[in-house]
């Protein structure tokens, strides 16, 4: 296994661990770190005029993720 592959795998793993850490931190009593759900809810409120841009962007992104992994 090449060194670059190991570094890349470690980086992906680190990102996953950080997500778990932030989620756990966000769920603690009195935490000022938002949970992932709260963050998504905040982003989804973003509008440009009458267009719910944040909502369309997140829902569209998740749709693309599913299509990419299951149908491509």
């Amino acid at each position: 296994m090449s060194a670059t592959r190991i570094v890349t795998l470690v980086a992906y793993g680190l990102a996953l661990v950080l997500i778990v850490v932030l989620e756990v931190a966000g769920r603690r009593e009195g935490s000022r770190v938002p949970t992932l759900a709260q963050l998504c809810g905040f982003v989804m409120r973003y509008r440009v005029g009458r267009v719910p841009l944040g909502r369309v962007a997140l829902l569209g992104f998740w749709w693309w993720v599913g299509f990419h992994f299951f149908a491509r």
Partner: protein
Amino acid sequence: MDQQSPVAAESAPPRWHAPARAVGFVGASLAVGAFPSFSLRSTITMIGLGGAFFWLGVTRRLTRHPAVRRIARQALWWLVPVLVFATFELVSFALGSTPAHPTLSALADPVLQHYWARAAVFLGWISGYWALVKR
């Protein structure tokens, strides 16, 4: 003893919704787990199901969780994992997604060839999509 207010009781979904939804999601996952990539079945499923959820999420047909009106500056911590992942993903993609520089898709493909893994990941995807729809 807790009592729901009349408004909450009126807006609360029937009790059978959650278990029915869980059964539906698990059933869909068990079915989609058998659909191979690049197949017509998986393409139609992802377009149809994804489109239906997208439409449900954009329209106001479902009750949503209360809006999050503001978040603290500590939300910026979420940029750290996003940037770590995005940096390595984009560099790997730019370098051609080789075994030495694998993208997440390249790592996931061999895993998703197994039925149970595919069904489990699909269950996570559809549950996450529903959570976004209700936000």
